């Protein structure tokens, strides 16, 4: 296979004096779903924040489409094609749904295709079109998550990163969210997923990485990790029956 879409090597991130990530390395193939799992505070979100340009890594390489991109700002990353749906969704709550989506296509690359992308997003999420003039903050959690994903898609990402998309949502909605991820993947969107819902995250993933206190403890294919007794013991003792 050709070069992967994203290759991360020896990534180190600090918050002030505290090191949050130690020598993280992995790669994401084009068209794949890659999951990063781990418990609370393991540094999963930090990986995404570093890749999206919100946090500047102290050292390491990030190659995207064959060129080095580490250290660039978030506004540049999204123009290059890396888009993040942040934890807690980060919608502009006082703006309407449609305004949120319009701003999703703010970058130079995405702006000319805005109308066409909007059609695509409306097709994916019919509920968004129906409520386009509503204030985003007044929607339910699940709807807000869809708007957040829709907004990220408006930038025409080559890599869509989702940070805990199922957090705080009712089980039925969680199911919908994962269906959407699957649909997007079928439409050739490469996905990097961070999840606490480990069972679902591994089931959907081609490959995955397990993080513990900022370090990689395991990598492998999604289904292999899912069957791994250690993973089952450490992370899925109680979660299994629920999902």
């Amino acid at each position, binding site marked *: 296979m050709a070069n992967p879409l994203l290759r991360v090597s020896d990534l180190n991130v*600090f*918050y*002030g004096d505290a090191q949050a990530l130690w020598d993280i390395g992995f790669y994401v193939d084009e068209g794949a779903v890659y999951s990063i799992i781990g418990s609370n505070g393991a540094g999963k979100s930090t990986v995404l*924040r570093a890749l999206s340009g*919100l*946090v*500047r890594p*102290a050292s390491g390489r990030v190659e995207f489409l064959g060129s080095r991109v580490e250290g660039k700002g978030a506004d540049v990353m999204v123009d290059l094609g890396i888009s993040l749906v942040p934890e807690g969704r980060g919608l502009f709550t006082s703006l309407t749904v449609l305004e949120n989506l319009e701003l999703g296509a703010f970058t130079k690359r995405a702006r000319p295709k805005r109308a066409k992308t909007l059609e695509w997003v409306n097709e994916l999420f019919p509920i968004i079109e129906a409520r386009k003039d509503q204030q985003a903050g007044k929607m339910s959690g699940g709807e807000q998550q869809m708007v957040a994903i829709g907004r990220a898609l408006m930038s025409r990402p080559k890599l869509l990163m989702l940070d805990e998309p199922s957090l705080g949502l009712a089980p039925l909605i969680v199911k919908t969210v994962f269906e959407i991820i699957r649909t997007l993947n079928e439409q050739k969107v490469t996905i990097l997923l961070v999840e606490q819902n480990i069972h679902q995250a591994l089931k959907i993933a081609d490959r995955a990485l397990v993080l513990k206190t900022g370090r990689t403890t395991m990598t492998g294919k999604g289904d292999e990790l899912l069957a791994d007794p250690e993973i089952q013991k450490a992370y899925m003792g109680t979660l299994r029956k629920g999902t």
Partner: protein
Amino acid sequence: MKKKTQIGLLVLVTALFAAVPLILDSEKSYYVYFLFMAFTFIALSQSWNLVAGYTGQISLGLHAFFGLGAYVIAIGWGQEIIGFFDPLGMILSGLIPAILAVVVGIPLLSKLRGDYFALGTLGLGEILRLVFIQGGALTGGSAGLMLPSSSYTSMLPYYFIALFLAVFATVVTYLMVQSSLGWALKAVRDDETAAAANGINILKYKVLAFAVGAFMAGLCGSLQAYYLFHIHPQNFFGLNWTLYPILMCVLGGVGSITGPVIGAIFLTAIFELSKILLPEIHPIFSGLLIVLTVIFLPDGIVRLGWFEKFFKGRKTESPINLKLFTGKEK
């Protein structure tokens, strides 16, 4: 530096300054006047430094407390309640601003967003200025109050009181910042919400620091009142009494103990020089200096590499983050 070295250095520097009037004629020497002003500004700068260090916020109302302290003396003396260099008067000139600081500080400091504090303290100075202009015979209106200047006998008491204020303010700031409480506050300052969630009542200590700062500023005001004998709102509630100490702290290094001292001596020298050489340009210069310092020297002189190396001091962190973006997230 070790603690013993620090105390030794403080005693040595204080003794050196205390010996100055033995060498120079305190009545004629310009240097004695210069040091008198520098000591006053050291005390004012430490007052601002303490508030910034403890609350992580910018006070723009130092002149409110300074002017209030001066008026306590002026009105008290005018009404013949207190006299010349009256200890009771000087204590009152610290206490009354401190009480005002508590009253204003509790609501302003309980807000998590800093601008309210900066704006509120700025507004406070303006209110006091107007109130004292409107005060009628009691405050002398915009012409102010004249005090019996025949009381003046010697520069020496001014010099030593100013030196005492500077040392007092420096030591108090040092002790408060070094106390275990000071460290705890430093730890939670960046994440106030978390601190509040953990039930740490930091408001109490912030208000305390604000009141102590106001106390020092009021004392400085009373000393200036005794020195100038003419107390009027335009001077004593002038914004310069806030502007200069801020500038001195920023230039020297906010949040360090030596920074305000260095900044105050250095800038008092520059201001006195420019008053003589370029009287017209002088206020423009201080505005420009504050802009340039924040842009090019945000961490202050004490955090320059050569300075740290020279003193082998521990790296201190500026409490109000004047540093350029380094990658740390909120």
